[in-house]
């Protein structure tokens, strides 16, 4: 664990991406594979299944530090990170001869077995670690038992560090890391091995290629004939794998969606072997998309019942072919992949659809077509360069998402709560309301969209104009109006307002508006498309 702590400190001590990558390369070069495997696991944002709940941890912190529980709560609210709060409140152990255990030993022999113990035994283990671990080691230990490490490195950066170490293409490392990768010594060695990938499991998906938002006029992309256009569907990005008689559906978050979408699995049985499709899972009926809210009723269901299947039917809309006849064809041009996809998939095969491309010869015509996105229930357009390969991660240049402008409304700030991580100790989580017959009613929570200067100003104002405190939440005088953007709206029984907004965020601070000029709930309700 000592060298992992040193790595953590090195990553935390710089804001430079190159310096972070160099620190990881140095670590991976000298770490034992069983430790390096766990380092990859945590650095890529994965976490152990919850071992202790946060209420218990706060109680143990209070007991161990001798501080009253309310003071632990106040401290947590101030720091904004429980692992850090616990590290700061627990006393520093005296100097000790004790060697820190290796990272793999810590995880496999201390942390994982905790899952099978009772409260008292788990408390004893946690306290024993607090008694022996100095400073940052205590913080990292707390991070491992509470969740993700979050040290400002992306999965992509870890991939690049490993690729530099191994002297391999980062796409290959990214591919090997996909799917059911396990943090073992053997798997780590395979990750950086020069050997060919004969033995990737059948279930292993390819790394997803992600589009970037188009911020320029499309005619700046060049000739229209070099580009392909598709509708941008508002569903769940997924990869469908058909290999050796088995079927696997992966979400972009790399969850196996086994059993969740039986209608898609049913349709995919007719696909030939050695096929991998990239596409979008959509709520879909009679050749039309249903609102995203309908799909949400399916996302959490591991085994949907007949009623759910009837109310929220889904389809898989294929838009790319990554593997054909067992061969990885990602390096072939998009136009070729499209043609091949047509040969394996007719326009419709049950709930497996090939929505196809939009014919266009002029950018202007495409721009006009994009205006119809809302009526069609899509988010806008995707633009893809016809001769492009299928890359991995968010690489700019060949895939662009050209979304329609979001909906907006003017809401009143009524509650605020301190943020976490980088925004700890500042009131950055806001709740906004609109007018209704019952007065102001909350409709959206938003965290992003203000500049640091605006956040600082608002934070000072909130502290000075707090009306009531409910735990960490403060209600404030209804004074400030903000323009908020959102992507969609649906009826909701779980919200007091009766509506739920999709992806709300702050567009700008409307200092020019008074509270009575903010929008009405009925203005929002009119936008609901049923």
């Amino acid at each position, binding site marked *: 664990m000592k060298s992992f702590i040193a790595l953590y400190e090195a990553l935390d001590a710089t*804001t430079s991406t190159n310096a972070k990558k160099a620190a990881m390369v140095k670590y991976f070069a000298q770490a034992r594979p069983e430790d390096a495997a766990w380092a990859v696991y945590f650095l890529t944002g994965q976490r152990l299944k919850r071992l202790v709940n946060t209420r218990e941890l706060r109680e143990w912190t209070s007991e161990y*530090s001798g501080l009253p529980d309310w*003071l632990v709560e*106040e*401290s947590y609210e101030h720091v904004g*990170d429980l692992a850090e709060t616990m590290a*700061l*409140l627990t006393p520093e152990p005296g100097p000790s001869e004790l060697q820190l255990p290796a990272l793999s030993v810590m995880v496999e022999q201390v942390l994982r077995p905790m899952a099978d113990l009772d409260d008292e035994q788990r408390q004893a283990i946690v306290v024993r670690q607090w008694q022996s671990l100095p400073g940052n080691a205590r913080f990292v230990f707390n991070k491992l038992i509470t969740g993700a490490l979050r040290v400002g490195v992306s999965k992509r950066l870890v991939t690049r560090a490993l690729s530099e170490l191994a002297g391999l293409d980062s796409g290959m490392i990214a591919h090997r890391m996909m799917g059911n990768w396990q943090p073992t010594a053997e798997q780590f060695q395979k990750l950086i091995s020069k050997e060919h990938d004969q033995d990737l499991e059948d279930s292993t998906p390819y790394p997803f290629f992600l589009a970037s938002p188009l911020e320029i006029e499309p005619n700046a992309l060049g000739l229209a004939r070099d580009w392909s256009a598709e509708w941008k569907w508002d569903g769940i990005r997924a990869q469908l794998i058909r290999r050796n008689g088995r079927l696997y559906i992966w979400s972009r978050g790399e969850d196996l969606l086994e059993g969740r979408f039986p209608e898609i699995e049913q349709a995919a049985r007719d696909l030939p072997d050695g096929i991998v499709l990239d596409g979008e899972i959509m709520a879909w009926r009679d050749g039309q998309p249903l609102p995203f809210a309908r799909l949400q009723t399916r996302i959490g269901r591991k085994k949907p019942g007949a009623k759910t299947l009837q109310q929220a039917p889904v389809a898989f809309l294929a838009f790319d072919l990554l593997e054909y006849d067992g061969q990885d064809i990602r390096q072939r041009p998009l136009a070729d992949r499209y043609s091949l996809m047509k040969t394996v998939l007719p326009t419709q095969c049950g709930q497996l659809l090939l929505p196809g491309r939009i014919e266009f010869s002029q950018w202007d015509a495409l721009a006009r077509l994009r205006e119809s996105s809302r009526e069609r229930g899509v988010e806008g357009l995707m633009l893809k360069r016809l001769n492009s390969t299928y890359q991995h991660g968010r690489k700019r240049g060949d895939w662009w998402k050209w979304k329609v402008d979001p909906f907006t409304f003017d809401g009143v700030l009524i509650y605020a709560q301190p943020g976490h991580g980088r925004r700890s100790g500042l009131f950055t989580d806001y709740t906004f309301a609109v007018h209704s017959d019952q007065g102001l009613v909350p409709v959206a929570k938003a965290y992003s969209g203000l500049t640091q200067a605006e956040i600082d100003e608002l934070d000072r104002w909130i502290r000075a104009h707090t009306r009531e405190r409910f735990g960490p939440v403060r209600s404030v005088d209804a004074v400030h109006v903000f323009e908020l953007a959102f992507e969609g709206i649906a009826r909701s029984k779980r919200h007091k307002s009766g509506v739920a907004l999709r992806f709300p965020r702050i567009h700008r601070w409307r200092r020019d508006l008074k509270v009575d000029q903010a929008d009405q709930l009925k203005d929002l309700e009119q936008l609901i498309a049923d």
Partner: protein
Amino acid sequence: MASDVLVPSAGGLYCAAGNFWIDPLKPVERAVITHAHADHARAGAGEYHSTRAGLPALKARVGADDRHQSHEYGEVFELGDTRVTLFPAGHILGSAWVKIESDAGVWGVSGDFKRALDPTCEAFHSNPCDVWVTECTFGLPVYRWPDTAIVIEQIQRWWDDCRDRAVPAVLFCYALGKAQRVMAELAQRTDRAIWLHGAMRPLVDAYREAGVDLPDTRMVSEAEKGERFQGDLILAPPSAAGSPWMRRFKNHSSGFVSGWMRIRGNRRRRGYDRGFILSDHADWPALIETVEDMQASRVITIHGNGEALSGYLKAQGLDSERWNLRASLSDGA
């Protein structure tokens, strides 16, 4: 309860028996100033009382004229019906806490203070009071300072690392107090010269005149054209971060010296590479230790998150409350 010796007023504390204000933010007739930081010392008072050691910095802040009366530490002087003494607060050069004796008992007002040793100023000197009015800028138990020696060692290692990589090491710190403290600590370990931002100069000069031993310094503004500052340490006030002035330090590593750096989110939010936890304020254990040393039965918290400290002291059986001095600004007082 008998009437209090002090009440919040003009952003500071007013003593009716002596007809003076302590650290007022608005112009008043007569001010007693604990130290020259901007949130304690403002121009416009009719008369200033301060320590002799703190006078140069105070004059730099509020102007030099004949309205100043300075006093030695421990010297008793009379204001109205009160007897006032200034004791070392250990915060910065010339900083004081104020003891007020009157018929209504003995009150102590902390200004800002710390208990850790500092080569640039006299150490905090405690003296019993009935009522202790304490700052609590860092009034939560998450604030516990590491040993100064450890932090200075970290700064020095970071500087060495920047020398190895031949990049400028830009260290942000408050221009009055913190900068000189860091410089004086470093002077005990190295004789390398340090570059200064222009805002540091008058205060560094004032410390030198007061006899504080500081390392050789050079002004960034007087550097030769094309100077690349490779491996050099540069001290700058936090306001310089992100300004065009920074462009001359190519590929620099940045650090910030402050008690706030105890919290990781504070450092990350400001985008500093390194945070060094060195404060001129008392940490949580020192706040509580000082309450004990003062032997006061009543503790009033000012500046900062006073609710937590007051709540904690009340649970310990003391009489304690929080006063909001800022609120007194809008009272029209």
